[in-house]
């Protein structure tokens, strides 16, 4: 610690701080260093000037639209996941016999894995699957169901795998809010809707923003299900497919790093926008835990 200030120098060095060093060193070595390496590599293309990869990305027809393709999938998926998780978690906020059961049931999809969801959807939504047989049985709809190998297949699989995660996260935030606050509001005549709007929502804002970001990361980096359930050449050619192809099919690591950096940058914009939006509701650090 060569940068220690004179005041700190008098205090004997706290050796507990050494405990954090292995983890910090590891992250620097395997996360920060590769990131910087990739960033530099992206400005060092196979041919052309420093920005050749980036101009190539934004002028090639099967590369730059992947940003919109990805956002068109990831944003609705995240909105659906968080939008449904919020009211259901709100209903579950009080400890009850059901809470544990419902939580366990809703957590199960986490264990499925993308491949099982993909396989299951291909069978279940398939032309001879249970869904189409059932719909024909009750004469509701007899045409072919087109829910796989397109946009909807990927969206559904993103909801199945993303919803439990969003639900768990929001539930943990809601249960962290002291119910005494809502009870106090109700003695002053606030109905449940007002309680939600004026007590829970402002306190939840940071958690919701965080949950939105984490759920968005999950949906945004969709790769296996976009290949297995979508049409990876057309409407679900997401940006991670483009990055993967550049790296492992064309072996152009420089271009692949550039695409990865663009991907990270777009992600960063969304996260920054969400965290900025959070401040609309969030009015200050209310330590709602201990009331």
């Amino acid at each position, binding site marked *: 610690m060569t940068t220690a200030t004179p005041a700190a120098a008098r205090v004997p060095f706290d*050796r*507990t*701080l050494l*405990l954090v060093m*292995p*983890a*910090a060193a*590891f*992250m620097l070595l395997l*996360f920060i260093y*590769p*990131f910087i*390496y*990739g960033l530099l*590599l992206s400005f060092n293309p196979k041919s052309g000037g420093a920005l050749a990869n980036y101009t190539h990305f934004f002028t090639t027809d099967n590369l730059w639209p992947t940003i919109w393709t990805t956002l068109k999938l990831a944003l609705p998926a995240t909105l659906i996941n968080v939008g449904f998780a919020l*009211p*259901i978690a709100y209903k579950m906020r009080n400890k009850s016999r059901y809470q544990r059961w419902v939580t366990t049931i809703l*957590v*199960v999809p*986490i*264990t*499925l*894995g993308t*491949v*099982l969801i*993909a*396989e*299951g959807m291909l*069978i*279940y939504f398939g032309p*001879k*699957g249970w869904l189409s*047989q059932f719909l024909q049985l009750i004469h509701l709809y007899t045409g072919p169901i087109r829910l796989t190998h397109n946009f909807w297949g990927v969206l559904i699989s993103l909801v*199945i795998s993303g919803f439990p995660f969003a639900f*768990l996260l929001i539930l*943990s935030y809601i*249960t*962290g809010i002291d119910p005494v606050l809502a009870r106090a509001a109700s003695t002053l005549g606030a*109905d*449940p809707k007002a309680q939600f709007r004026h007590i829970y929502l402002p306190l939840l804002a*940071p958690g919701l923003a*965080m949950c939105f970001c984490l759920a968005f*990361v999950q949906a945004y980096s969709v*790769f296996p299900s976009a*290949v*297995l359930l979508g049409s990876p050449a057309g409407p679900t050619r997401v940006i991670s497919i483009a*990055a*993967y192809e550049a*790296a*492992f099919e064309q072996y152009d*690591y420089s271009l692949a*790093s550039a*695409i*990865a*950096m663009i*991907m*990270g940058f777009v*992600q960063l914009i969304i*996260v920054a926008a969400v965290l900025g939006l959070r401040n609309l509701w969030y009015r200050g*650090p209310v330590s709602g835990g201990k009331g």
Partner: protein
Amino acid sequence: MGATAKPMNSTGSWFDRLWRVLLLGTMTLFVLNIGLIIAAVATSSFARRWLGTWLPDGWTTTWYTEAWREFQLGDILWVTVEVVFAVVLLALLIGVPAAYTLARRDFPGKRLLMLLFLLPLMVPPITYGIPMATVLYKLHLAGTIYGVILANLVPAAPFVILVMTPFIEQIDPNLESAARVFGASTARMFWHVLVPLLAPGILAASLLVLVRTIALFELTFLTAGSDSQTLVVALYYAVFAAGVRAPQSVDAMAMVYMSVTLILLLIALRFVNPTQLVSRVKEHPQPAT
């Protein structure tokens, strides 16, 4: 109380009832369809021949033995076990001490350090996976089991830190002071006071890292060679090369995968209430007080 309030919010209660029915309906539909999706895979994995009928003609377990033989499922499971346990062990080894420091001490640069540990969870795995795979290939580590372990450790170690920090904060620092008064060294205090108290937290964190690592596709996919594939990646290749393999044996493999993760997750949920997992994340984005 209900009687006096009735005339005022009769429209409200009607709306509430509709809302409740809508929520319950959506949730039931969601759970039902997921159940049927799982059941479809399960049925297919046990089906002798299943073409366009409600249930297959006959039942068999040959797909499981075939998957075992054809995919070298034994080898893949062994690699998965090796990778996952190495990742859990190493993540605990570097994560728990770091979480301890973050929970107990304030020091300049702490917030920066927290950001460093939060970033791998906020950046899409493909974004840092591709540069990381490039570096690992340069070091001739990618394609080997060590590369896979290192790659998976990048999100696993911060996850342990994130889960363990609130656990450690709950423990009374006086216990440590008492151990100090009786002359325990840091290492002794760690093993004889902290570790026993932290056991449930460590167990929960390791099980969750276990489940996450088994499920983490992208990083393993980018760094694995043909003999260092874990179960998810092998499954992906099996489906991707559809037509080469019988779909039923892929289904059988998927069922094996699901049962392994499900059992581990259910064990994890016995030790940790999922609603208390992320309390640290909640506090993090708030300004320092």
